[in-house]
């Protein structure tokens, strides 16, 4: 029968609409602004009493508390908005003291049944929430230079051990290492040695200016890429760990391109502090414990990290810093006691070896350096001023006896628990940046601007949507209603898809939604105009509907595919804001094709299909020819 959908097709439409509805639903329950409380050490947990103290401190400051709850090992205090959240954090921190970490967080308020099927609201981008955005660039030249230096010192040591006489061996300007030999046979020996042990080098034998025998070691392009990748990945890990130290919830730390790292910290307003912590280069030190008779000027007393009452007297001289830690892993020793395996890079291994071979049976300390900002209030000329002070705090995380001379790999034992060991390994890894980084881009969005952008975006979507609905209704009457239902479903599906993909909603993304609303009716307009045309040429209503939908199909597909191609290019080449716009545009095109071709057809079929129709309500004076 003409214009009748089989039952299964109607059911499919219904199913898609219901699923779309369910997954779009969580957006009605936006995340709450909250402060999250966790124990500063893995051993500290938060209980009801601590939570109560936090809540009453916030209430005393005149900030409304929506609710407070304990989850897993965290406490969560929900407040009403971003500004209340910013104000609440220092208050809670002051009330609870140093044993707890207080962080800004977005707490989901989606009902449990929705969360159990994996539905959640879209995430808000920085421009809607407030926060800071950094783009850091890893200094690849120095990453390469560092690695080459490490290789050069290793290879020189090997040559010395094998008693092959050489000259030179330092890193040259062209990122290569040139070794000079007195005769051909020692060069051949060196060639074999390097070839056997360092297959990452390209080897080239040549005669120098004074016809000496030279061996040139250069890195293959692939190897350089690998070193660069390693540097970026390592820095990513470090930054992630440091961001955690900052106490920011839902941070984004991502690689962008070959040498860049994007860091987005929602809710953070103090860029200076964030930059100091992210950009700090060394935050670990290895030092020997001071001898009994050491002069006090050369020593320093430091507390332990997990027990501030315990202290140790250490030498001021630093053996090596966290910069030289290549890797650290938690593991177990022969007696199943937790330990941390540490691998140093070349120079680090050298320095460690030199320092420890004369210090067997002495103890070595691993010192963690924490960068913190303390805010203190000062009274200047009768005005209270808050001053940020950068604090560099050193504490000992481990003090262990040196059993034998250490080299590039060694282990730290005598740790209390697996937790402690993995925490130490993490700190050691977090402590080393593989290469220096500098800031190439920085943006701050204040919390008030974020709220303003949300309101503006919401208003423009609503108004645009209502205007289009009115336009279609006035112009196409009954069919206008069909188009409007399809448009509503389209908007819902768009939100559902973005929520399922957990896409981040940004201001340009909202602009994309608004534009989609305007353009989505295009397919319906094409179809309706075609139906009108067929009616005008004398076709009976049922056939006109059928012809209208099928003839408009080709135009709709062609037009949408080309637009989709442009949107994909936009997504591929764009950064940040452009990407957000492109992704909504892409999804919008797909959902609008579905809603115009399938959903609106379904409604029209259900209304007119399978019966005699004299007149279509499609607007215009020519409709009832």
């Amino acid at each position, binding site marked *: 029968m003409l214009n009748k959908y089989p039952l299964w097709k109607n059911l499919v439409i219904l199913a898609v609409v219901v699923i779309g509805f369910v997954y779009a639903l969580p957006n009605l329950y936006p995340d709450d602004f909250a402060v999250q409380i966790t124990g500063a050490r893995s051993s500290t947990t938060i209980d009801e009493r601590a939570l109560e103290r936090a809540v009453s401190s916030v209430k005393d400051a005149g900030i409304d508390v929506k609710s407070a709850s304990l989850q897993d090992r965290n406490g969560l205090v929900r407040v009403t908005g971003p500004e209340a959240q910013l104000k609440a954090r220092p208050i809670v921190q002051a009330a609870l003291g140093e044993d707890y970490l207080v962080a800004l967080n977005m707490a989901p308020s989606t009902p449990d049944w929705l969360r159990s099927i994996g539905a959640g609201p879209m995430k808000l981008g920085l421009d809607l929430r407030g926060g800071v955005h950094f783009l850091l660039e890893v200094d690849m030249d120095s990453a390469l230079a560092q690695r080459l230096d490490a290789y050069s010192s290793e290879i020189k040591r090997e040559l010395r051990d094998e008693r092959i006489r050489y000259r030179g061996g330092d890193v040259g300007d062209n990122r290569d290492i040139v070794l000079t030999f007195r005769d051909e046979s020692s060069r051949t020996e060196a060639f074999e040695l390097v070839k056997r042990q360092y297959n990452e080098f390209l080897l080239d034998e040549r005669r120098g200016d004074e016809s000496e025998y030279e061996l040139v070691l250069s890195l293959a392009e692939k190897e350089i890429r690998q070193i660069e990748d390693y540097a970026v990945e390592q820095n990513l890990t470090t930054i992630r760990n440091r961001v955690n130290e900052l106490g920011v919830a839902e941070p984004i730390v991502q690689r962008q391109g070959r040498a860049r790292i994007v860091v987005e910290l929602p809710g953070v307003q103090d860029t200076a502090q964030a930059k100091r912590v992210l950009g700090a280069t060394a935050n670990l030190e290895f030092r020997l414990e001071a001898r009994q008779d050491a002069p006090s000027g050369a020593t320093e007393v430091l507390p332990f990290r997990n027990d501030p009452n315990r202290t140790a007297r250490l030498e001021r001289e630093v053996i090596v810093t966290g910069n030289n830690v290549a890797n650290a892993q938690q593991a177990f020793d022969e007696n199943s006691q937790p330990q941390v395996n540490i691998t140093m890079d070349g120079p680090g291994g050298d320095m460690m070896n030199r320092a420890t071979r004369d210090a067997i049976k002495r103890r070595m300390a691993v010192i963690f350096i924490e960068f913190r900002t303390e805010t203190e209030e000062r009274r200047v000329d009768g005005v209270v001023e808050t001053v940020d002070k950068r604090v560099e705090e050193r504490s000992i995380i481990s003090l262990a006896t040196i059993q034998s001379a250490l080299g590039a790999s060694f282990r730290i034992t005598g740790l209390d628990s697996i937790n402690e060991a993995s925490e130490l390994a993490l700190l050691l890894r977090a402590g080393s940046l593989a290469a220096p980084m500098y800031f190439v881009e920085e943006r701050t969005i204040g919390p008030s601007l974020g709220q303003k952008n949300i309101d503006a975006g919401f208003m423009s979507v609503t108004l645009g949507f209502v205007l289009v609905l009115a336009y279609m209704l006035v112009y196409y009457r009954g069919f206008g209603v069909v188009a409007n239902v399809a448009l509503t479903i389209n908007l819902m599906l768009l939100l559902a898809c973005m929520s399922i993909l957990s896409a981040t909603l940004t201001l340009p993304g909202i602009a994309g939604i608004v534009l989609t609303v305007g353009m989505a009716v295009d397919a319906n307009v094409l179809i309706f105009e075609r139906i009108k045309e067929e009616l005008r040429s004398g076709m009976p209503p049922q056939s006109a509907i059928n012809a209208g939908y099928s003839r408009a199909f080709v135009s709709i597909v062609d037009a949408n595919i*080309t637009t989709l191609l442009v949107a994909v290019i936009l997504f591929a080449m764009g950064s940040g804001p452009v990407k957000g716009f492109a992704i909504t545009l892409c999804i919008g095109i797909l959902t609008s094709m579905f809603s115009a071709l399938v959903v609106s057809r379904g409604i029209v079929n259900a209304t007119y299909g399978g019966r005699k129709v004299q007149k279509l309500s499609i607007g215009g004076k020519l409709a009832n020819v």
Partner: protein
Amino acid sequence: MSDVDKKPIDFMGIRKAAAIMSILLVIGSVIALGVRGLNLGLDFTGGASVELDYQQAPDLNSIRNTLTDAGYVNFVVQNFGDESSVLVRLSDAFDDELAGRVTKDLRATGDELELVSSAFVGSQVGDELKEDSGLGLLLALAVVLIYVGMRFQFKFGIASVLPLAHDVIIILGVFAVFQWTFDLSVLAALLAVIGYSLNDTIVVADRIRENFRKMRVGDSEHVINESIHQTISRTLNTSGTTLVVLIALYFLGGEAINNFAIALIIGVVVGTYSSIYVAASLLIAFGVSREDLIIPPKEGVEGAEKDEQPPEWLNRM
């Protein structure tokens, strides 16, 4: 808006006048771009900017004096949105602490103000973005040319890409004349315009193709005119709904996307015009004819002018 009359409007009758107008607009835009240049935003130039919200509308000149006294050079102070919002732009891109210092210095004068947003972009990032953006625009046009060339015919490919270039150049020209800030969001708008205008052009081209295969009488000009006539109310309606939401976006979307909305509004107007006049005129100028679009007769298929049928599965829907 009402339905068009049955008697076709003679769109192509004024195509010479339209062509002259288009050429003048494009030349004017190119001159404006050459003489005044684009007022590139921070994203492209690198530099620093600070947006401040004052409790009371401040005097911009006194802000300028304060900044000059504090030793800043090469800065621009302007209102952003309403009178109490101030945007300070500094082209000195080498110092990423700049934004914080500016706020501190201005606060020192005793004015009540709040930092709304700040940005710092290294000049290297800006340069790369400029290159990537140009490349992106060209790539978009090339992909369109290839797709339309394959889907329709080569003449159609050219006839749909040139109007896109026409639209982009005119938008750039308007931005150059009024010195509106051209930033990343405007670039996104440009690409959206390409998508939109193309959409329009394809719908018209699609009808032209269909009519060439269906109509046995009349020359190319007549067929094209008829096709435009048949699609005009769709073209105007879609542009209408899109313009309506864009105007909503312009007035309510906030300062940050004003330029985005403006670029799209110009783009939709120019794009609608260009899909009728530029694309169709080009087809006539290229001498597109029935022979270009005839489907090569297959064995057993009768008549080459049979109009293209949608896939069979669609009819079953």
